[in-house]
């Protein structure tokens, strides 16, 4: 936003896909752990026991929402760590079992937190994690970003140790046919573990049901009103992950490090809140998203929804705006107080060409006209009104 206070507008936050505001209940639940309840959950005395109790209550809550047993929940430092632990942990375990060249199958539209550990392992950069070399097979998607099940099946064979397909895509919002993926994996690669990145799906999808067949599930607190730096990985009994972090052996040797009890409590509270209100919130947010999308389609020429709305998460509105550079549109939207995004940023903070749109067959020029609005638990009708007041004017200015 411009430095001049006279021009500072109120914030219209439509970037829940990047992060979401912390729920008041979450902040309240976490507060004691920054003050009175400061114990280290791994100790023996009463302060430690108190912290441990809070941790285990959080664990049970998370397990319930994710449809797993408490022993299957590993608390991590966020979605990226959960994804890395799933990929490298499973592959390292496979290598330990004697599989010298394990194969990973993943969709081409996975989040970088899945793709990068796969690629690092393929390049031999993951040796320290116990993974000397892997084969990575990336499976394409259709123009709606749905994973190609036949191509996936063709990639399956007994050498496959891990299959990773996200529950929903974070960029365009498309829900993936995970149950079908699981069925085919069980048939064609019975030794493989199935991992699903449920990070973007978690606020809106019944994870216990949708991910029932998966062996590993990643979630991240800050995408559903929880704190940053806190996540979890469900590791089903019978699935082995070698740890990334070695040390005191916490989380049953799967993730060493003094427990972030506040973070775990924050994750649990956020997941529970989201689960409790899931049906009504999904409907409420979808209605707001529909009003935003329909409003933009009516007010602006040359706008296309990237994926049929019925196939995406309730909060996702991913559009392409013909003849407009996404970087420029985002600057003007920001000037108007509207926070949105467009794909992943690189280390420097600049937007990178979207690998998701590329996989969907969208050409580079069209991909540069893409913009993503993601609605969530704090989005209101006023947000949609303000967005509809700002966006068409911004587009018009850029097309002049």
């Amino acid at each position: 936003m411009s430095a001049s206070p006279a021009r500072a507008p109120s914030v219209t936050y439509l970037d829940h896909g990047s992060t979401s505001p912390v729920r008041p209940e979450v902040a309240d639940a976490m507060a004691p752990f920054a003050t009175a309840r400061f114990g280290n959950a791994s100790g023996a005395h009463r302060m430690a026991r108190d912290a441990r109790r809070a941790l285990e209550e959080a664990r049970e809550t998370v397990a319930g929402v994710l449809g797993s047993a408490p022993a299957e929940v590993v608390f991590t430092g966020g979605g990226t760590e959960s994804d890395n632990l799933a990929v490298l942990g499973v592959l390292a375990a496979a290598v330990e079992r004697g599989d010298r060249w394990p194969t990973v199958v993943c969709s081409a539209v996975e989040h970088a937190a899945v793709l990068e550990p796969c690629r690092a392992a393929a390049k031999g950069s993951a040796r320290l994690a116990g993974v000397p070399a892997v084969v990575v097979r990336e499976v394409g998607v259709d123009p709606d970003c749905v994973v190609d099940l036949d191509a996936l099946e063709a990639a399956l064979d007994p050498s496959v140790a891990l299959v990773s397909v996200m529950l929903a895509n974070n960029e365009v919002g498309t829900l993936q046919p995970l149950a079908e993926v699981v069925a085919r994996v069980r048939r064609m690669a019975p030794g493989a573990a199935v991992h699903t990145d449920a990070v973007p799906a978690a606020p809106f999808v019944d994870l216990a049901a949708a991910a029932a067949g998966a062996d590993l599930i990643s979630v991240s607190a800050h995408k559903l009103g929880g704190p940053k730096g806190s996540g979890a990985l469900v590791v089903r009994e019978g699935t082995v992950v070698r740890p990334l972090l070695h040390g005191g052996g916490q989380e049953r040797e799967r993730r060493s490090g003094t427990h972030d009890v506040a973070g775990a409590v924050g994750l649990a509270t956020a997941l529970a809140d989201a689960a409790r209100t899931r049906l009504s919130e999904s409907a409420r947010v979808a209605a707001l998203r529909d009003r935003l999308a329909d409003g933009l389609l009516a007010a602006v020429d040359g706008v296309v929804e990237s994926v049929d709305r019925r196939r995406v998460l309730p909060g996702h509105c991913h559009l392409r705006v013909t003849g407009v550079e996404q970087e420029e549109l985002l600057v003007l939207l920001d000037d108007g107080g509207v926070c949105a995004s467009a794909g992943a940023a690189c280390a420097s903070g600049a937007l990178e060409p979207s690998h998701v749109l590329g996989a969907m067959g969208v050409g580079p020029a069209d991909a540069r006209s893409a913009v993503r609005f993601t609605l969530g638990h704090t989005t209101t009708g006023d947000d949609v009104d303000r967005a509809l007041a700002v966006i068409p004017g911004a587009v018009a200015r850029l097309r002049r």
Partner: protein
Amino acid sequence: MRVLVAMSGGVDSSVAAARLVAGGHEVVGATLKLWGGASDSGCCSVADVDDARRVAQQLGIAHHVFNLAEEFEASVVAPYVADHVAGRTPNPCIECNRHIKFDRLLERSGRLGFDALATGHHARVAPGPAGEGHRLRRGADAAKDQSYVLSMLGQSQLARLVLPVGAMTKAEVRAEAAALGLRTAAKPDSQDVCFIHSATGRAGFLAGRLALHPATVVDRRSGEAVGTVEGIELVTVGQRRGMGQAPDGSRRYVVAVDVSTRRVTVGGAAEALTREVALVPSSLTWVGAPLAEGTAAVAQVSAHGRPAPCVLGSGPSGPVVRFAEAQRPVAPGQTVALYDAGDPDDVVGAGIAA
């Protein structure tokens, strides 16, 4: 005035932004991401973006990072490689200014509602003759003058360009940055081409992008082959390095490079001199009115080269700059910047050596 400041993460653009903020303008900073490959040579590395962003935070201004890597590859890097294949020696920083900074970025600043684009270049924009239009002048610090790399600009760009540090010396710039507590106050200036890694150099970069061909080195006078080079594409007219010595102990300089016959011609210091350089006709740009044929001017053929009195003439293929005194030859592809004979701080125009 709403100004977009191009912030490279260096001290000059940091102080440029600071001066505009102090002047009461509405300032927004932007850093360009131009290159995603391996490079440690300043200008737009991740560390530089971080520095620019931090300075923007310290100044209380918004900061954006613009990814123009595709345009940069197409307009700067690919032509750089192609020029070497053709035996030319391009100046990619000038091409970046021509196509990216003062074209794409300048256009973008207009679309985003900015009145002007500012950079930290050591040069000055001044009112034109009789108050009409604009002039481009050397920076106040002669040792740091960057008018050479801006010499291709014309009236439409100068009308929207602000150069806040052009009237300052480098020492003054650093002192101001230090006084403001800016992170970049003591940061060394970036010296190299931003996409070339200092460890592997130009040779390493080009070896990864094109096939290098060996060539024979031939003595100009005797016509004899006196050696070979591994990559003719890496040889520059005027180059002394790697050419060895004549039997009498005198140094050899490259006089000509012929890629098609794979011949590098060398000569002694005296033979390697020239009185003129032809310019590519379509490359000629003028700050104001074009110079008439026969007009005296002052030519500068490298970023910090010694200005040489000359006359603009013409030859069989187009414009020719004729030097008053014999010079080292100008490699094809290099920019020849022309300054006013009566006021040699004033840039008149520029062209590319044919």
